[in-house]
């Protein structure tokens, strides 16, 4: 069932936050949404962590905007896998984001101008630290579960390492304990597109009243290719052409070109390039095993949570092999883990899709959590 009308809330955190990169945020705001009711024992809270382009608007719609559905609406709601009849579900926009939480476009209190280039590079660990402040604010000692896909899955994993006692279950979906060289390469091409845009102005484009739309658009087009599967693209677009194609020009001729340009334009209109740069950096840096000579099992040993790891067969950006590495490290340690490999045609984006087996697995896992 649909969750119906929802609204966003703000929380202000006046205590400074020291970031992993060494800089200090004097204060920050997080924008978040909640669905369902927190029970008296405060034991039924689930945190949903967003991926690169996500935000706090996870489910439902705002009053008067019935089409503005949350990005993971299909999994949150009464009777849905994240059942709001049973759970209190929290969505939050991460630090450095561009949907209301403190980020590069926010005003820097020391200058009175947008942070721009001065906004620090934030990491998955920093996001989790900021989310923990939100948990304090909401009176939640321990999450029943933290769940996320892709970059969100990295946060779900990091929660179990940063705050082992504050997360009972971690659902790590279409994710990885570290990016591959290929993944970092894609991210850097995306960053180069933004950094090389003449409208970027070293990150201080707000002052020039322009935005590096061309770079951001290219970054998104590239990213989007990697979120789909070859089969799915072949089926959805094939070599189909637009009317008037075959003019031996560089106009939009193939449907896939039209689709990607549309996705790029739509995204560039809504998203902030400085945030995009930082999100991709957070992805690249994430590597909890680094401090353990690359030994993932050693890195995960301090987790106390139970894990559900899910991957998708056609996801080549975060392949099943990356998920299996996490599973094997947890098994090595004798930690509780279930792993499902979902046969889905939609590539990396599968984690956002409604798939019977996928949703049934998430629902079954969450149902067995004792509140």
């Amino acid at each position, binding site marked *: 069932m649909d969750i119906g009308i929802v609204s966003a809330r703000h929380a202000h955190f006046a205590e400074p936050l020291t970031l992993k990169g060494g800089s200090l945020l004097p204060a920050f705001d997080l924008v978040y949404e909640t669905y369902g009711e927190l029970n008296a024992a405060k034991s039924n809270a689930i945190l949903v962590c967003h991926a690169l382009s996500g935000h706090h608007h996870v489910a439902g719609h705002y009053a008067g905007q019935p089409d503005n559905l949350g990005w993971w609406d299909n999994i949150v709601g009464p009777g849905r896998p994240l059942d709001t009849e049973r759970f209190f579900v929290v969505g939050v926009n991460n630090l450095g984001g561009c949907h209301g939480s403190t980020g590069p476009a926010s005003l820097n209190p020391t200058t009175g101008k947008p942070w721009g280039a001065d906004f620090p590079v934030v990491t998955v660990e920093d996001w989790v630290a900021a989310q923990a402040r939100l948990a304090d604010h909401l009176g939640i000692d321990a999450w029943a579960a933290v769940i996320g896909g892709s970059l969100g899955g990295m946060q779900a994993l990091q929660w179990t390492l940063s705050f082992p006692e504050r997360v009972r279950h971690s659902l790590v979906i279409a994710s990885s304990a570290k990016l591959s060289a290929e993944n970092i390469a894609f991210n850097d091409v995306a960053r180069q597109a933004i950094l090389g845009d003449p409208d970027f102005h070293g990150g201080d484009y707000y002052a020039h009243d322009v935005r590096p739309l061309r770079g951001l658009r290219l970054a998104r087009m590239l990213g989007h290719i990697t979120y789909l599967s070859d089969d799915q693209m072949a089926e959805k677009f094939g070599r189909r052409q637009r009317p008037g194609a075959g003019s031996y020009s560089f106009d939009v001729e193939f449907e896939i070109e039209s689709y990607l340009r549309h996705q790029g334009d739509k995204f560039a209109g809504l998203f902030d390039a400085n945030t995009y740069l930082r999100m991709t950096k957070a992805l690249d840096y994430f590597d909890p095993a680094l401090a353990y000579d690359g030994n993932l099992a050693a890195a995960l040993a301090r987790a106390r949570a139970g894990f559900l790891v899910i991957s998708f067969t056609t996801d080549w950006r975060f392949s099943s092999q990356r998920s299996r*590495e996490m*599973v094997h490290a947890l*098994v090595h340690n004798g930690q509780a*883990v*279930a*792993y499902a*490999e979902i046969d889905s045609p939609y590539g990396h984006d599968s984690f956002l899709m409604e798939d019977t087996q996928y949703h*049934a*697995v998430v629902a*079954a896992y969450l149902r067995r959590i004792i509140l």
Partner: protein
Amino acid sequence: MTAWQTPMNERADFDLIASWVKPGERVLDLGCGDGSLLKRLIGERGAHGYGIEYEDASVLAAIMNGINVIQGDLEQGLAGFDDGTFNHVVLSRTLQTVRHTERLLAEMLRVGKEAVVSFPNFAYWKNRQAVLKGRMPVSEDLPYEWFDTPNLRFFTLLDFESLCTKMQLVIRERQVLDEAGRLVVTRPNLLGSLAVYRLGR
């Protein structure tokens, strides 16, 4: 791996396996289905268990049962699992459905200190009788018709033991059951419908 129908004497098979697992031991159940055996080993024996299962429906059922189930294909081996991780690696009524028999047995004894293997005995007297009458056997432990069986390999106690010799696997214990799940002591290759072995290196 678990497309078989549940035989009536399933308990007998599980009874034996459960009796071999000590509290706190780590067990890996290959082709764990809905996790019934693991649930029992965890609940009754205090074991620490994981299962591997290929079929979507069984993975879902195992998650509902609270089992540490890992979706995967046994034909791919047990890559990623470290050597000697488990006290027992169980393969219950599944060996006959596996194509890469030797590789899987070797993998079981790589990740586990002991392999527990049960399988239907093709030389069981009723099966011999059926073949003598000119038909492929259908029995409690071989419950399929020839055209819908998931079983790829048909072998006997003697065949299996000869493979163990060839692979230099040590048979630590063998128990043989009839169709009702009763222990068979004499002439096991003739009177036994299901064999359960404990193997080591």
